[in-house]
């Protein structure tokens, strides 16, 4: 198969390109060894296993809650997070018998909030907002920031200077203030808008991480070899640089996700995240703080969910970053 190349570079058999990388880098890296899920699991410390379990529960719960509302019309065994159990019941013409700020019970595992809504259901549903924001910000960060960082780390020059200066300016600005300013632009604050804003603001951090890795990888022998044989820069970028930057970005995603969860929680607490009555952990904390002297649990439960999630993301993120570093050191 012939490759159309610039006139100055000799043609090189395309099917031998990957062999160049492998030969130069040695047998231990670049083409990663197959790592089975079981091996990863076995290498995890207990705290990371527990953290992973928590994250799985949160993700499962969030998806379950979303499916319940979107597909099953609330027929799955989980209470409606917005139903006020002391509210007016049209069928009977009476008000419900639920109590606001109730303690734990069999009907309300984590009690009820100030307007008698089930706290457990709200926490489970609240996880969906965090999940969506994390996924969107990770996608934006990896796809845009990751690509941009890989590109400028590879091509260098004025483009790199310009892009990194922009990134530095954005990162130098207090993140929450910038976020508040961006969020306040939008009159309607739905999940799409909030996710998009946080996603856009995630890009600079990913760009910086990707660029640092790209710089290091660009100077590796296999990249030099690829250049030497006249491979097109775009091909080097997509076949040699980005695939090697990606694992680091994925490991970073877990740590960044923890930050994103906190940021979304802060916005919610300030009443600037998704609009009511959609439950989020942040707005649950905000609404429950008024009654903290009566029932501290209503502040505690969403706080605990937020804390455990952030802690878990950090634990798992650290674990994968360490794995990546160990593997990187083998290069």
């Amino acid at each position: 198969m012939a490759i159309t190349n610039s006139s100055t570079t000799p043609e090189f058999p395309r099917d031998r390109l990957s062999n160049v990388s492998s030969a130069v880098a040695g047998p231990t890296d670049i083409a990663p060894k197959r790592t089975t899920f079981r091996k990863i699991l076995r290498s995890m410390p207990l705290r990371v296993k527990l953290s992973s379990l928590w994250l799985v529960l949160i993700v499962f719960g969030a998806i379950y809650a979303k499916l319940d509302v979107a597909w099953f019309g609330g027929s799955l065994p989980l209470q409606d997070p917005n139903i006020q159990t002391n509210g007016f019941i049209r069928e009977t013409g009476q008000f419900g018998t639920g109590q606001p700020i109730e303690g734990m019970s069999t009907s309300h595992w984590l009690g009820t909030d100030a307007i008698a809504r089930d706290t457990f259901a709200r926490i489970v549903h609240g996880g969906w907002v965090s999940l969506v924001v994390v996924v969107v910000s990770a996608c934006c960060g990896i796809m845009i920031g990751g690509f941009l960082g890989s590109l400028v780390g590879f091509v260098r020059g004025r483009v790199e200077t310009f892009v990194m200066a922009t990134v530095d300016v954005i990162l130098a600005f207090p993140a929450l203030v910038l976020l508040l300013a961006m969020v306040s632009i939008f009159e309607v604050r739905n999940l799409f808008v909030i996710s998009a804003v946080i996603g856009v603001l995630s890009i600079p951090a990913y760009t910086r991480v990707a660029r640092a890795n790209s710089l290091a990888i660009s100077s590796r022998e296999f990249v030099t070899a690829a250049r030497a044989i006249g491979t097109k820069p775009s091909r080097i970028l997509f076949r040699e640089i980005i695939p090697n930057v990606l694992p680091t970005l994925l490991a970073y995603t877990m740590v960044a996700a923890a930050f994103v969860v906190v940021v979304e929680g802060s916005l919610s607490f300030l009443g600037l995240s998704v609009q009511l009555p959609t439950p989020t952990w942040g707005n649950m904390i905000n609404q429950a703080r008024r009654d903290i002297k009566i029932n501290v649990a209503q502040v505690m439960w969403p706080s605990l969910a937020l804390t455990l999630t952030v802690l878990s993301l950090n634990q798992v993120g650290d674990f994968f970053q360490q794995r990546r570093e160990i593997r990187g050191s083998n290069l």
Partner: protein
Amino acid sequence: MRRRGLYRAVAFLAAAGLVAGACGGSDDSAPADTTEESSEEAEAPAEEPADEPADEPAEEPAVEAGDEAEGDVDTEIVEEETAIEYGGSVSVGLEAEATGLRPWEDTCSSPCYNMMVAVYDKLVEQTSSGAYSPNVAESISANEDFTVWTMTLRPGITFHNGVELTAQTIADMFPIQQAGAAGSGAVSAANLVSVEATGDLEVTYTLSQGGSAFPASLARAPLGMVFDPAAAAADSEGYSMAPIGTGPFVIDSRDLDNETTFVRNDNYWATDPDGNALPYLDSISFRPIPDEGTRLDALLSGTINAMQTLRQGTIRDARAARDDDGADITLWEFQGNNLGGGMFNVLVPPFDDVRVRRALVKMGSQEQTIEALGGTGISLPATQWFSPDSPWWSEKVAEAWPQFDFEGGVEILTEYINDPERSDGKAVGESIDVELSCPPDPTLIAAMQVSEQLYTASGLVNVTLTNFDQQTHIGIALGGENGFVGDHKMHCWRWGSDDDPAVSLNPALAPPTAEIAEAAGIPGVVSPLNFPNWFSPTAFQAAVAANQTDDFETRFGLYESIMLEFADQVPVYYSGHTATAIGTDTNVLGLNSWHLPSGELGIGFPAAEGRWAEVFIAS
């Protein structure tokens, strides 16, 4: 443009008073007293009939006029029997830092007034019966049509800087008040045209139209608080940091957002009824502690020995600490005419149709809303701009106000929705869109979600809940950019105050736009304070007439007719009356027993605004 600027100033002043104070309002309740020296007792409205009742079904009212209703535990205003003691200091926790300490410039709410009354005296004050009585003024009287008011000042009063207070001082204050952000609005609202010194101690106020409630304006900060005009003109900015008044305390230090301390004014002119010099305290300091829980904890832990609150939830917690945990605190509670609720922008479809407004009010549950606000057992459901213990409260209005009737509301809304001529331009049978907006306070968020669920349950309403910070919230309703029509739809708001109704109600009834004024045959009479944009010629005329007589029965009938029209047309809706409290250590006494120069007991501490001159610490 200047007119628009003036409107903006007036509107912002009032809006801030209504909303920013979040329960604020000042301290007057009852008809204006137009007699000299002493005041008439405010009388209960009795059984004077007014206009025909609104056509809403009535339920048995829970309370009678003048009664205290369940949950309303206003601390009694009585003579303090404990022997007074001099000395000591009180540290007061406030919900916010004062916006400034210049009466003519700074728009104040409760925290700010607490500080201002320490350093400034008012020309007129309110007695425990709610009537207005001269304070720094010795007497005040009006001509027959209430367009000229003559006030005589007390002799021998000096400012903290030694300058003597004369009639010329009051006259010199006027241009500064006219130019001030707060003062200009007050001057405009009072229809005040000129202030002249017609003697050493005699001041003549001239109004552009009769104002029987004018003394009420002299009991409020912008026009009523006496300041040194020469010092104010010389350094307006500095005056906020180092205010000069004739009041019981002198500024000692002001550390913004931390602590402001006032010390005893040794030359204070007023005495208690026994002739003892005032004030009793050596000093008083004010500390802004915005978080409600932290402020209460500071009181319970002894970090401060007094605090103010306008939140039902805090009152509930303070009551629990006192009653259940045995905390040594006294709660000086007051629940006046100020009330929570909201409004519909009647110039915006579908709220331009009274059927929609009636339906939404009927479908809303006051009881549940108050519970969500944390006010169960504390805050009374409101039916009008006056609380049941106000002389202006009307049983007829209470009966006329739409009660919770979900199916009744659905029926009315269905009629609108199926009307081919429905005003919102949607297809027949389509749900209406309601945007309900409140500031992002947790209590309001809870309350608006109660309404949201009820409206949604009807299947006829698409509800969107929005929260904007308080400043933005006010700005949206003010709508300076669109001729003061506003961009609001269904909007949380506060109504009423303990002022004379002429002060709180009249500006809300004038035409909201020039076009409406012209159509009504009163061109040029436009009020940006008509936030719901609802205009009724009959209500407006009743308000004007009520300001031109001092006969209480007549005025009561006129204001009752306005409230009945509100109950019928529902441009506004209500939740509960605003409960307020000052909490103190149990040895801090005297908040409920301060006096006017006439010897009458003062009004106490409405809207959690204390008068600190006769407060003392019992050993």
